[in-house]
């Protein structure tokens, strides 16, 4: 069923383009604009959803999402530092350095959140609070950087922070896609111990898991995915929260199903967003605007549901 849905989306992306004619312009549009767009949407959607699905279990908070717990803003901060202070670098170097900066930002904020949440284990929402603290701080530093930057880099950054799937070309995708695929496959292979983790670290250890090693490896893989997603598409809200959350509501909690399904549905969701924003409306709607419009109400719904359980 999910495979069919993907095919439908791919078909939708061919609308308006007649790739199979001999028109060179049409073929170039397909190869250099439409196809990278679809690949970006798919890989970013999948990366954000799979990493969130894992983070929610690892941090034992069903509301964890790279955007909400501050990983995205950590990555954005490093991207901003790079874009505003290192604006002398050439375009080719940009494609190499920007993902690296985003990734380091994502890793640093992930571990900051992890350490903070371990210091405050009694508070169920400690992770969310730690994330808000990190987001606020990152936002403040970005605002300071704005004050001291020139107009050109400021425009660059503003556009990037809004989140866009149109930025990535083949040069960066050829580097990002394999890494994301490896990280996602690695996470999916950890589905069984992640199932134990629903019941806390000590129960996972009792079931035979080396918890410390596991934590480090998984957080690293998640940070890698988020870092790359942010570096190629800017910050995209709520996809990570929405997809695993809905899947768990309908299909249960078994990560052996949830992780692959999150990858497929996350990819599908962003591709649908692309279809809506590019083909249906006729003008470019920022991705984050659409995902947040969709994600906002779902976030409310899940908060209310969590409240009812207590």
């Amino acid at each position, binding site marked *: 069923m999910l495979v069919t849905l993907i095919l439908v989306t791919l078909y939708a992306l061919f609308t308006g383009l007649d790739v199979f004619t001999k028109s060179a312009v049409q073929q170039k549009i397909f190869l250099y604009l439409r196809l990278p767009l679809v690949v970006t949407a798919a890989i970013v959607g999948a990366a954000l959803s799979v990493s969130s699905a894992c983070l929610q*279990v690892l941090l*034992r*908070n*069903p509301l964890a999402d790279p955007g909400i717990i501050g990983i995205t803003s950590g990555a954005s901060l490093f991207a901003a530092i790079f874009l505003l202070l290192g604006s002398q670098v050439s375009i080719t170097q940009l494609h190499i350095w920007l993902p690296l900066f985003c990734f380091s930002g994502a890793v640093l904020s992930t571990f900051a959140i992890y350490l903070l949440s371990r210091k405050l284990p009694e508070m*169920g929402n400690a992770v969310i609070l730690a994330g808000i603290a990190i987001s606020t701080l990152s936002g403040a530093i970005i605002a300071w950087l704005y004050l001291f930057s020139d107009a050109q880099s400021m425009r660059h950054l503003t556009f990037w922070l809004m989140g866009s799937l149109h930025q990535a070309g083949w040069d960066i995708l050829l580097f990002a896609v394999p890494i994301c695929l490896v990280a996602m496959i690695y996470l999916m292979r950890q589905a069984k111990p992640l*199932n*134990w983790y*629903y*019941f*806390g670290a*000590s*129960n996972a*250890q*009792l*079931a*035979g*898991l*080396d918890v410390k090693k596991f934590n480090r490896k998984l957080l690293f893989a998640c940070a890698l995915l988020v870092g790359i997603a942010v570096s190629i598409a800017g910050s995209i809200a709520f996809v990570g929260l929405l997809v695993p959350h809905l899947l*768990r509501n309908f299909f*249960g*909690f*078994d990560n052996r199903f949830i992780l692959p399904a999150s990858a497929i549905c996350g990819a599908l969701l962003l591709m649908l967003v692309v279809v809506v924003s590019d083909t249906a409306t006729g003008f470019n709607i920022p991705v984050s605007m659409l995902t947040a419009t969709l994600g906002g109400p779902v976030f409310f719904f899940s908060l209310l549901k969590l409240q009812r*359980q207590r």
Partner: protein
Amino acid sequence: MIELTGVSVLNRISDVNLSLKRGHMVHILGNNGSGKSTLLAVMSALLSSDSGKVELLGKDLSEYDLIELANLRCFQEQGHNQVFTITVRETLQFFSASAEMPESLEQALEIKPFMNRELTALSGGEQRRVHIARALLQVWPAIENGSALILLDEPIQGLDYRHQHLLFGLLNQLASKGNLVVVSHHDLNLCYQYADKLVLLKDKRVYAVGLAKEIMKEEFLEQAFCCKISCYSDEAGNRLFQTYLN
């Protein structure tokens, strides 16, 4: 089966020497903070001791592979803080190799009626029954061989009388197969009824170890629990304990 020599954990237990054998049902009793949970956690390898040695089947506990240990011993912790709305069925599936609930386990814990409900929606006692089942299912193949170490921290907390007896009945049965069962709780009468061996803790130390029926004497218990305890015997020789403040 498990042997503790001079085991200490800072501020929690000190200089514990214990040797527990297969096929026994061992009860750990003692006041709050006397070290019951810590002792169980050390035996489960969840907590490592600051000094002393813990040997399981003649091999140092720290030398065990985590997976090997997971197939050999189970430990049900006292508190459970569940944030996800997982169903009982999934909870059991995640920790069990087989999809079917063993007959004897179901008879004692009676979980099937709420198999499809969310764990967090159940009552405290029902949740505890699920967690006990989850722990036992993790080592069920070893239990059937009679080679498992079963550690349960206050398993009867929140359980009704019927399920307290059903559970201890099952644990006795598992012990008679050759497994070592170690439970902590606060009920002298259940201890007298079901324990083979009793470990009495006081002030983070082992106060007494021995056959339950031998060491469960009024004066001795009163000293261990700092509380007045009367013991009544019927014609059949059964003892009944009553506790009150001076």
